[in-house]
């Protein structure tokens, strides 16, 4: 049987730690900072993943994209060169591809996307080089970008066919062009031509370097073709009737596209594939950053070792006394080890608390979410740090000769 019993040891350790509250906090500071930063960074990584997953879910799991160039490498990550950045720019699709796809994939919605760039003027403001997305009457529904009730509508098939001068504005650009509000129904000028604003999109928020829908203007595809001066399609969106058909449809799309393009010249992918790639990158980044933050846990551990060595010197007489009255070496070893572990667990606890509060604060302007596993890991790591860096001082204490220790001044 362990003597003293574990609860006696823990009680007396806590008591001796509380006798030096200021020192305890200072000693734990390294662990506190380390755990706080690990919790914060992992919470940001987790929050980011959840946010991006939600964004992709809003697109729908039954969406297939066809884009130029080779986007993914063979391992599912993003291709660094592969099929080539050159092709990424040079390849584009045409309306012929759209009709080929429509012919082979009946029952699916095929939406071409053409991107142009132009200056937009309103009576109140000028915006230069706005991205103008030209697409079909089905794009709004397919990409989950329909104006909400009261904010207008998407353009119709007739408007698309007649290349009517109608435009749907992203939320930010609408506010920029009409700072006093209510852009709906107003006139704007794109390349010296009048357009009518028929819809305004809800704010979607930035998407971390990716396309920001809030900054875009949407027109019938023929308008975008006219603005660019050619009929190049930059991306194709395909909606399958349900998500079980995605895999099979992707193969069919590839077959169609391969008739006109080389294998590396285009990529057919669905949202889950893109999501996995982005999430794996975020995962690696999170681990890397947390690893750097974890260095301060090691520094914190050294701080604990340092203060425990001081404690052992300070309490030499106590150790001598305990030995004289019957403490065997292992009892002393365990006592000081437990003190070190409790010291670092206090740091871990405060760190978890600060990290959690911090991530709540960050969550107001950036997605952040603390997971139970990150708390468990941070806490476990700080306990392990306590053990590793507590062993040396505890061994020193347990090896003191009682005679020398009692004589120590």
């Amino acid at each position, binding site marked *: 049987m362990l*003597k*003293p*019993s574990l609860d*006696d040891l823990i009680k*007396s350790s806590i*008591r001796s730690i509380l*006798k030096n509250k200021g020192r305890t906090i200072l000693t734990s500071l390294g662990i506190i900072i380390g755990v706080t930063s690990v919790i914060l960074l992992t919470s940001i990584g987790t929050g980011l993943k959840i946010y991006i997953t939600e964004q992709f879910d809003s697109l729908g799991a039954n969406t297939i994209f066809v884009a130029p160039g080779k986007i993914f490498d063979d391992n599912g990550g993003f291709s660094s060169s592969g099929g080539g950045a050159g092709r990424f720019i040079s390849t584009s699709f045409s309306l012929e591809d759209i009709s080929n796809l429509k012919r082979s994939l009946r029952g699916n919605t095929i939406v071409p996307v053409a991107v142009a760039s132009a200056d937009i003027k309103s009576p109140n403001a000028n915006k230069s080089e706005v991205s103008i997305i030209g697409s079909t009457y089905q794009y709004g529904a397919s990409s989950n970008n329909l104006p909400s009730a009261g904010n207008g509508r998407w353009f119709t098939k007739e408007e698309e066919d007649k290349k009517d001068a109608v435009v749907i504005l992203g939320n930010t650009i609408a506010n920029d062009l009409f700072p006093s509000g209510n852009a709906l129904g107003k006139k704007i000028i794109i390349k010296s031509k009048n357009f009518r604003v028929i819809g305004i999109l809800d704010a979607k928020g930035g998407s971390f370097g990716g396309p920001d829908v809030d900054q875009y203007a949407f027109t019938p595809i023929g308008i975008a073709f006219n603005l660019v001066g050619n009929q190049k399609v930059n991306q194709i969106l395909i909606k399958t009737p349900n998500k079980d058909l995605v895999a099979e449809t992707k193969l069919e799309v590839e077959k169609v596209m391969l008739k006109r393009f080389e294998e590396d010249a285009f990529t057919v992918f669905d949202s889950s594939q893109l999501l996995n790639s982005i999430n794996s990158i975020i995962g690696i980044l999170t681990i890397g950053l947390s690893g750097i933050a974890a260095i301060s846990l090691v520094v914190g551990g050294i701080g604990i070792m340092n203060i425990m060595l001081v404690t052992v010197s300070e309490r030499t*007489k*106590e150790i*001598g*006394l*305990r*030995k*004289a*009255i*019957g*403490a*065997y*070496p*292992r*009892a002393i070893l365990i006592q000081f080890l437990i003190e070190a572990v409790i010291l670092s667990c206090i740091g871990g606890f405060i760190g978890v608390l600060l990290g959690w509060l911090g991530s709540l604060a960050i969550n107001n302007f950036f997605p952040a979410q603390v997971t139970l596993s990150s708390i468990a890991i941070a806490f476990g790591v700080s306990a392990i740090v306590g053990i590793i860096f507590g062993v040396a001082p505890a061994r020193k204490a347990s090896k003191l000769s*009682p*005679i020398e220790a*009692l004589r120590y001044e």
Partner: protein
Amino acid sequence: MIKSPSPKNSPVILELRDVVKTYTSGNTQFNALDGVSLQIRKGEFVSITGPSGSGKSTLMHIIGLLDNPTSGQVLLEEQDISHLNENEMAKVRNVTLGFVFQQFNLLPKTSSLENAMLPLLYSDVPKPAREGLAIEMLTKVGLDQKLKNTPAQLSGGQQQRVAIARALINDPKIILADEPTGNLDSKSGTEVMKLFHHLHEKEGRTIVLVTHDPELAQQANRVIIIKDGKVSTENK
């Protein structure tokens, strides 16, 4: 000062047979104890005295089971304990000996009660019984009103009495007091010595008092004088 009669026929608790303790420093060897033989009987009040450097402290360490002799035998109730390992020695110290030190050696910022209970942490005494025992011992030394006080709130004499309560708590076979009055004024010193006499006379405790002060040593009913690592005189 009244001396209680020496219990000449009571059993021997601790016996040293031809104990030698050699310290080596570099090439020179030095015998701190050079063939010491002595017996301590149950219920005796023995003092060990001698000038500094006489080997008095080394003898105390051997009797206190804090150190092993280089040669010779130490018998505790006729059992040879001279070759026990560190853990076994700690166990024997815990149940057999009660230490009282010159410096009191109480844990700072810790109540009298907790200080008196300390040896029980390392013993087989069940937890619920511990506090009662500590209160009993502190009452015995006259500190039942100071259970919650920390050493800083106690006078030197009171601190030493807490230390005596701590020494008594495991019902030891021998109380080993090393200059117990060395840090006290004469009044508190006298009170502490009175307490030792009380424990000896009324409870039949075996007490070994180590002191350099010949006058104090004379209060015991047997004085062992150590000189140059040898027993020079035993006054009976």
